[in-house]
């Protein structure tokens, strides 16, 4: 029921933005007149508007009646809230294509229903720090670099003093 819209959500930002839109739509249901349609047209992104229009236009196969909009929107909010979050700390701002690739990779491993929480921290030099379901792994170049420098400290200092 929600898979079409959930598959389009790849990042934490997208999820938050979508939840806000859905809440706005839900609130418009309590207004008189065609407020819901107006909101769909003016306050929601086009692709979201299209998916929701298609969804609410369908009839409930079991109840043989129109889909309850409020229940649908509430269900969508709950499903969005259930998406798992995988935090990636990167040394650069990734392109959309890169985000797509990383999302696909992780979704393939953990299944659907995951969003990426990406932040940029140039100090890590390269690679990534990954936090997922309580697990923390530092695969950054900074860590490798620090490790290497710690092991080679004496050698570096000796070389420096010889060259001084």
């Amino acid at each position: 029921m929600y898979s079409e819209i959930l598959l389009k959500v790849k990042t934490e930002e997208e999820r938050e933005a979508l939840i806000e839109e859905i809440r706005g739509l839900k609130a418009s249901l309590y207004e008189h007149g065609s407020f819901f349609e107006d909101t769909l047209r003016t306050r929601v992104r086009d692709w979201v508007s299209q998916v929701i229009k298609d969804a609410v236009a369908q009839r409930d196969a079991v109840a043989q009646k129109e889909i309850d909009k409020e229940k649908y929107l509430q269900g969508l909010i709950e499903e969005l809230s259930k998406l798992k979050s995988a935090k990636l700390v990167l040394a650069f701002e990734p392109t959309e294509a890169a985000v797509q690739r990383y999302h696909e990779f992780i979704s393939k491993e953990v299944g659907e229903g995951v969003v990426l929480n990406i932040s940029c921290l140039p100090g890590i030099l390269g690679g990534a720090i990954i936090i997922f379901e309580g697990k923390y792994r530092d695969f950054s170049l900074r860590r490798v670099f620090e490790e290497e420098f710690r092991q080679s400290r004496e050698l570096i200092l000796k070389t420096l003093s010889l060259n001084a």
Partner: protein
Amino acid sequence: MEPNTIYLLILIGISIVFIAIGAVTAYLRVVSMYLSLKEEQINLKRDIAREKDKALEEAGRQTVQIVEEARLKAQEIIKQAQIFSTDQKSGLSEEIKRLSEVQGRQYQAFLQDIQKQVIMTTQSVSSESKEEMLKEIKVFRDTLQAEVARSQSEARSLILNAYKTIETEVERYKEMRFKELDKGIFEIVKEISKKVIGKEINVEEHEKLVTKTLEEAKQQNVF
């Protein structure tokens, strides 16, 4: 100003104070000895003056006695003169004259003896006093030298100890600073290396690195 320098200055100051106290003590001792010697000299002069007065009194007394004896003898001669002839009187006058001259010479000799004796006594006393004074001065000089030497030794010892302490602290400080310097150099090298690496990696390489990272995470069952 560094704490070590202040510490050294304080110790040097304490040493100077010690030396000053020693010098003042020695000075007070000298003044005391000088006053004592001066008093002794005054007493000595008083004794000499008394001795001189006594000798002069004795001389005067003897002189009076001699003159009295002469006068009595002269009166006796004059009494006898009336019964003597002119020649006898003339001889008598010469005799009186001779006797007066003898008495005068004797009196002169006596006075000279007294004078010599007084001079000799005075010289003897001065010489003894001088020797005593020189001896005292020598003792004082030796004591003063010993005091100065002791103060110098103590000051040297204090300064040496302070120097050793400061030297140890300086060594420790140097070691600490070298360590800090090493650390600083190391950090600089590290930061420069990081910046160089950071600049050398382009977006494409970054993306590849992240893909490798995800593979690594998969192998470590992060997902």
